[in-house]
C-alpha cells in the first residue's frame, strides 16, 4: 500500500511538471493551429539557461524562471513573426510542421555544440533534502517543482480568463476574422501567444533542470510528452494541460513501478492510441471549440 501511495505521489509530482512543460504547446496548437515541434527545444533551453545562471551567477533556478521566461518570450515572438509566419503564409499550416521540425534539429545540434553531449543536472542547496509525509517521503525539489508548476499554471489560467489579453487570445483562437474586426491585431497576438508558450516551456525547463538530468537530446522527449498531454487532456487550456499532465505522470510512474521502467514509452503510446480512438478531442475537449 505504501508503495502504491509513494508511486502515486511521484506520478503526480512528475505530472505537474509535464503539465507546465506542455501548456505552451497546447496554447499554440489551440490558438494558431500549429503543432510546434520546436517546443521541446524551448524546454531544454530553459533548463540550460537555468544551469548557466546557477553555475556562473549563483542564481537559484526558481528565480531564474523570470529572466529565462522573458528571454524565451522574446525568442518565441520573433521566431513566430518571422520563420513560422513566412512558412504558413507562403505554404500552409502543415508547412509549419516541417519548418519547426527542421529548426528543432538545428537547435538541438547547436545546443550540443555549445554544452557538449554530457548529461547535466542542476543541484541547488535543497537538492538532497526530503521530508517525511506519514509513511511516505518526498524530495524537497519535487515539492518545489510541483508548487512552482501549479502556481504558473494558475497564473496563466487567470490571465486567459480575466484579462483583456486573455480574452483577445481566446477570441483570436475562435474567430480570427471577427477578432480582427473587433480591433485586435491578430498577427501580433499570434506572436505574443507563441512567445507566451515558449516562456512557459522555458520556465518548465528551469524546474525540470532541478528534478531530472537533461541533455540537448531530451528535447525530443519533451515535444512528445507535450503532444501526449494535449491528446489526453484537450487542446488550449491550462486545465486540460493539467489533467493530461497528471494522467501522463501517473501512467509513467505506475508503469515504471509495476510493469518495468523500460516500458513507460510503450504505455504512453498505448494510452495515446486508445485516447485518439475513444475521445480524440481529449478529456476536457478543445477550449476553443471545433473550429479546427
Amino acid at each position: 500500500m505504501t508503495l502504491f501511495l509513494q508511486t502515486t505521489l511521484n506520478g503526480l509530482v512528475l505530472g505537474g511538471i509535464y503539465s507546465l512543460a506542455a501548456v505552451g504547446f497546447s496554447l499554440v496548437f489551440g490558438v494558431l493551429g500549429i503543432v510546434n515541434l520546436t517546443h521541446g527545444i524551448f524546454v531544454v533551453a530553459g533548463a540550460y539557461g537555468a544551469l548557466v545562471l546557477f553555475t556562473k551567477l549563483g542564481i537559484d533556478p526558481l528565480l531564474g524562471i523570470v529572466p529565462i521566461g522573458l528571454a524565451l518570450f522574446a525568442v518565441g515572438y520573433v521566431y513566430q513573426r518571422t520563420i513560422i509566419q513566412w512558412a504558413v503564409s507562403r505554404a500552409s499550416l502543415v508547412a509549419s510542421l516541417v519548418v519547426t521540425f527542421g529548426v528543432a534539429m538545428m537547435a538541438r545540434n547547436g545546443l550540443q555544440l555549445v554544452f557538449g553531449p554530457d548529461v547535466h543536472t542542476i543541484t541547488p542547496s535543497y537538492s538532497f533534502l526530503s521530508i517525511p509525509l506519514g509513511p511516505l517521503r518526498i524530495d524537497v525539489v519535487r515539492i518545489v517543482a510541483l508548487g512552482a508548476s501549479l502556481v504558473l499554471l494558475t497564473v496563466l489560467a487567470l490571465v486567459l480568463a480575466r484579462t483583456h489579453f486573455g480574452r483577445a487570445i481566446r477570441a483570436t483562437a475562435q474567430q480570427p476574422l471577427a477578432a480582427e474586426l473587433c480591433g485586435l491585431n491578430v498577427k501580433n497576438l499570434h506572436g505574443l501567444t507563441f512567445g507566451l508558450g515558449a516562456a512557459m516551456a522555458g520556465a518548465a525547463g528551469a524546474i525540470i533542470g532541478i528534478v531530472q538530468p537533461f541533455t540537448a537530446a531530451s528535447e525530443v522527449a519533451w515535444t512528445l510528452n507535450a503532444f501526449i498531454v494535449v491528446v489526453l487532456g484537450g487542446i488550449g487550456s491550462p486545465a486540460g494541460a493539467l489533467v493530461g499532465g497528471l494522467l501522463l505522470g501517473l501512467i509513467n510512474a505506475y508503469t515504471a513501478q509495476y510493469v518495468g521502467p523500460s516500458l513507460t514509452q510503450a504505455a504512453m503510446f498505448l494510452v495515446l492510441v486508445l485516447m485518439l480512438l475513444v475521445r480524440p478531442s481529449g478529456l476536457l475537449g478543445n477550449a476553443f471549440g471545433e473550429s479546427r
Partner: protein
Amino acid sequence: MTATPGEQSGGNPTDEALLRVSGLAYDYAGVSAVSNCSLELRRGKIAALIGGNGAGKSTSVKMIAGALRSRSGSIMLDGRDITGLPAHKVVELGIALVPEGRLVFQHLTVRENLILSGHVRRAREKCTQSLGRVFELFPRLKERQAQVAGSLSGGEQQMLAIGRGLMTMPRLLILDEPSLGLSPILVGQIFGLVRKLNEEGISVLLVEQNVHHTLAIADYAYVLEKGRVVQEGEGRRLLNDPKVKEAYLGLV
C-alpha cells in the same frame, strides 16, 4: 470650389461623402470575385448594396473594412485614403463591419464579446456607457450577459454581433446580411433597428438579399452583379425599377 464659412464640417460640398470607394477588385486564388466596385455613402445616410449570391457583396465590404486587401482602386473615409489599412486599424477610424454569419466568439460570454470590442482605443473610455447602451437596445443580451455566446439563438447572436460592432462607437456601420436566417418578425426588428441607429447619427452601409425591406429604408442603393456595380439609384426609385423588380423581387 471653395468652402463657404457657414458650411458644416468645414469641407467642400463633395465632402458630404463619408465613404468613397472606387474600382475595388479582388481575386480568390485567381478567380475574380469583385472586378469593379465603386460606391459612395453620404454622411448620416443609409446606403445599400444588393445583389444575388456570389455577386461579390461580402468581398466588397470586407475590403472596405480592411479584412481583405483590394487588388486595385481606392477607399476614402472622410477624405482620408485608408486603402490597404488592416482591419484592426480601420476599426479605430470608425468603421465597424458586422460580418456575414455573425461570427460571434462562441466560447466567450455575451459580456466578454462586447467588452472585447469596446476595448478599441477610440471607444475604450466610454466602454461602460456603450455597454449600457447596447443592453438598452437589446434587453435580451443583458439578460444573457453571463452565458456563452454559442448558447444564444440565431437572432440573439445577430443582436450580439451588431452590439459588438456598436461597442467600437462607429461612424459607419456596415451590416453584412443581418437578416439572413431570421424569422420574419426578427427581420422586421433588425430593419427597424437599422433605421433607429441611423437616426441617432450612424451612417449605415447595408448589404442584403432581402431587397424589398432594404430598398424601402435605403437612401441610395447599388446593385452588384458578377463583381461590378451595374445599377445605382435612390432606394425607392430602384424599388420601382422594372429590371430590379424582375431580378430581385420576383415580380414581373
